[in-house]
């Protein structure tokens, strides 16, 4: 049996030290990703540093910003009043994710760091997976890949980043607080994730031993309308085939300002900067929405199983824009 040690430090500094000095150590938050992948034989940490007792839990209002402790659970954040009033689409993104049992365990920090659902990544009996075994190839590209990415993908890896929360948060320019032995650094979520390129095993800018302590969510101005639309086969308890997180400020029939991000399509939570350009100061019409969608889903990398997502994603975005502006 693969044995591992378990520690539950009381302070952030101890936790970071414990992981930083052991290359085979992992943080353990809610465990809904970490323990799953250990059971599947994908992760083999020899030390689990349980961070759930660290004082990093709770939501604090700071002017026009919410500071969310990394260990706040998904359910806790989803019941935050301010968030419900000012950015309800973040709440929707949370509540459309997983199941209530999972959301009671899963933390915000862990959610941002959840690993892909790619079936080939999750089964060590499959030899080829660049994310799991760098340089081994990519089984998904030649196989059944319905739940995979079309944006930011490459022949080396087409794995989806499946977080719903992250989609809404990249739309809002959330900022991640990262703590290491050297100190704290702040990274905007839009720059936090890395596209697979030739190194699909590297998913984000976090270095070993760095701990996410908090996420800042800037609150959009009052009067902002928002939506999180998640499209999937089942009505609940499934990851997105396509999702759209949108916040808009309207001026009559004209969109003054828009934030757009998409899920279910990207190797990273996909911010739609092009769509935002198109939408800014544009009339809320089907033509506008179509060009916003065309601008977002550009140069997709598709395999037979994901081809349908190009149009599905566009229509999802158009539907979300239609609903949020009407």
């Amino acid at each position, binding site marked *: *049996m*693969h044995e591992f040690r378990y520690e539950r430090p009381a302070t952030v500094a101890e936790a970071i030290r414990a992981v930083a000095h052991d290359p085979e150590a992992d943080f353990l938050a809610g465990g809904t990703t970490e323990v799953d992948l250990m059971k599947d*034989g994908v992760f083999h940490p020899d030390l689990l540093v349980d961070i759930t007792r660290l004082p990093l839990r709770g939501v604090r209002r700071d002017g026009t910003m919410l500071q969310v402790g990394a260990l706040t659970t998904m359910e806790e954040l989803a019941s935050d009043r301010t968030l419900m009033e000012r950015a309800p689409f973040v709440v929707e993104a949370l509540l459309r994710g997983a199941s209530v049992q999972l959301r009671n365990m899963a933390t915000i920090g862990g959610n941002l760091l959840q690993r892909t*659902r790619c*079936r*080939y990544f*999750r089964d060590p*009996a*499959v030899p080829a997976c660049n994310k799991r075994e760098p340089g081994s190839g990519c*089984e998904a590209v*030649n*196989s*059944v890949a319905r739940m995979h990415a079309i944006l930011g993908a490459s022949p080396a890896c087409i794995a989806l980043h499946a977080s719903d929360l992250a989609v809404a948060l990249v739309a809002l320019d959330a900022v991640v607080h990262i703590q290491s032995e050297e100190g704290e650094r702040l990274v905007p979520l839009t720059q936090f994730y890395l596209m697979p390129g030739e190194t699909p095993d590297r998913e984000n800018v976090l270095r070993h031993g760095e701990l996410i302590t908090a996420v800042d969510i800037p609150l959009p101005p009052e009067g902002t309308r928002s939506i999180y639309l998640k*499209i999937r*086969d*089942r*009505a*609940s*308890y*499934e990851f997105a*085939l396509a999702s759209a997180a949108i916040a808009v400020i309207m001026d009559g029939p004209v969109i003054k300002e828009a934030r757009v991000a998409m899920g279910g399509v990207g190797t990273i939570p996909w911010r739609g900067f092009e769509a935002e350009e198109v939408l800014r100061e544009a009339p809320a019409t089907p033509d506008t929405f179509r060009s916003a969608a065309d601008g977002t889903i550009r140069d997709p990398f598709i395999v037979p199983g994901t081809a*349908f997502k190009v*149009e*599905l994603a566009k*229509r*999802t975005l*158009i*539907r979300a824009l239609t609903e949020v502006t009407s």
Partner: protein
Amino acid sequence: MTTIQQPRILGAGVDRVDGPLKVTGQARYPNDVNLPGMAYAAVVRSTIPSGRITRMDTTAAEKSPGVLEVITHENADHLGEAPATFIKNPQPPLQDDAIRFYGQYIAVVVADTQQNATAAAGLIEVEYERHEAILDPHDPRAERIKDPWGEDTAWGDVRTALNRAPVMIDQTYTTSENTNNPLGLFTTLASWDGDTLTLHDSNQWPNMIQQVVAAMFGLPRDAVRVLTPFVGGGFGAGLRCWSHIPLAVMAARHVGRPVKLELTRPEMFTGLGHRTSSINWIRLGATRDGRLTAIEHESLTTLPLDGDEYEPCSSVSTWSYASPNVTARDQQVRLNIPWTNFMRAPGDAQGNFALESAIDELAWEVGLDPLEIRLLNYAEVDPKTGRPWSSNALRRCLEVGAQRFGWSNRNPEIGSMRDGHELVGYGVAGVSFFWYQQPCSAKVIVRGDGSAYVRSAVTDIGTGTYTIMAQLAAGLLGLEVDQVEMQLGDSSMPVGTAAGGSGLTAALGSAVHDACGRLIQKFVDLAGTDPFSPLANVPFEDVAVSEGRLFRKGDPTRGESLARILAVHGLTELSADGNSTPNSPDQLGMTPAGARGARFVEVRVDEDLGRVRVARIVTVNDGGRILNEKLARSQILGGTVGGVGMALFEDTVTDKDTGRIANATFGDYLIPVNADIPDVHVEFVGEPDAFNPIGVKGIGEIGLVGVAPAIANGIFHATGKRIRSLPITMDEVMD
């Protein structure tokens, strides 16, 4: 006297008699059983679909902590052939180095804990010689088996009728592989005591497991006892003796301790078979007013390299509708895949999807209401033999269903019923389910206190057999339900048949009926020998039972309690054996009809995104005599959920190069969640069936059948898109 005369007990929605045990955790499922000194087993599965093992290195596994034994084909016991039981069982595992599918068992590791066994199993190194695998049913190299069961059927002259038919439908319908996925992980706990063997095992037929294991291990049948009082669902998965069972038995013999082998969820996908995919070619010929003149139905389903399977998809076309000309033919193709196996409504579920889709296409073609065309072509008699049905309330199912559903509110025009972004569609399908019954036996015993117990080796897979048999025996013996104790799921009890094929209620019920009749006869005979008995000289035909008493019909005061009769004769109990064998259609001059049903669904299709939601379902079924309305309803509800799964979600995907099942987890293999299931209205119609003494028709499977075509037909009404392959996903519905 043996007529059923207790409407208060029979038919009533009596609560499950095993309910309290189950909700308080006292019902011991096979994986709940632990024995002193028990060891744990973990299996190792092949990671190629075809070839040969050239080297296995077990050194690391053997040295791994807690490991007691590692068994591979190199040190496995040589086992005897597995006999066929209705259908073939997998031949003993680990007998050679050949690999026939990805996921085949190639070793078993036994250790002191499950964790140690599982960890060591991961340390075994395997090298293979790879052979090219055949994984595609269309691969010309694949072995094709025509008319696999000698059941291809033809009457009339289909060719000519099709050539002459003014209207013809000629289409291909496909269904995907589905996996049974009972929630309870299948477990075998094997323990030897000298030359006798006890198995706590998850299955649907304890006597079958007993027979197969005895043959493989060269034991007399009596030396093997299989205990399955409870099992966490089956849906067909427990109808064969799967390879993990002999593995556990072999492992227990090697280590000289009881061994528990519990499969994991991914292992459940490769180790217990799955519903075969199917291709159905259907040609319908009809008159311009929609009357069928010809049905031609051919199917192709899949087989593993070394097994067999009974999935006559085309057979539904031989009994569902009246047609003067019919051919029904099936073919199978062998592939390097895990076993295909029965799954709730095998053959029928797939064939009905094809036929009911084609009938719907015909309705549109001739401009008839899809409900009307089914009524128009209703088979008044068995279309093959011209014999009357033992019962057939399909017409009534359709009529009642249409009324409950509000079918008359349907605007026939495609896409005409809209609600915002959603296109609303109404779909209907009829269901004529197969009939199946096997011999079965039971023993009924009345104790000194007048209470009774019933014993049979059959198991209750959760459908409610314990309860309905207690009701039946209570009704026949004139007792209350709580005076009847049920003892099932033990192969040493009177030989029972499978809890499968929707055939157990008729088989076991008829055996219980027989036993109760014989038992009452014994009581009447006993009483007759007692000159002081109020029943002395009363002939058997004139005796009735109620409230634990026998009495003369028409004169309830002239009678005696069962308990008193036993006491008078110094007996502590009295028992009778009952047997049932299916009646002969020739003798009765009728065709036994399985259950009948109608499905009405409202679907809502997002016009841009192609997303399908089922908004309403009305399911009306003819199950002959319904023994327990509440449990029957549960069966239909569960079947309906399975039908929605088959229609919209379930799809066991095999990687085309490796033969690996790509989605063998509940995260990846989608089944409906609560939010996918709308309000379901369940109703029963029909009369007691004439083919067995208790008048029942099995309803364990029919609930699933017909849901998928009704949904597909509704999607057509909503969108004008005819989807001919399952599952129906948004990418196909989207324009």
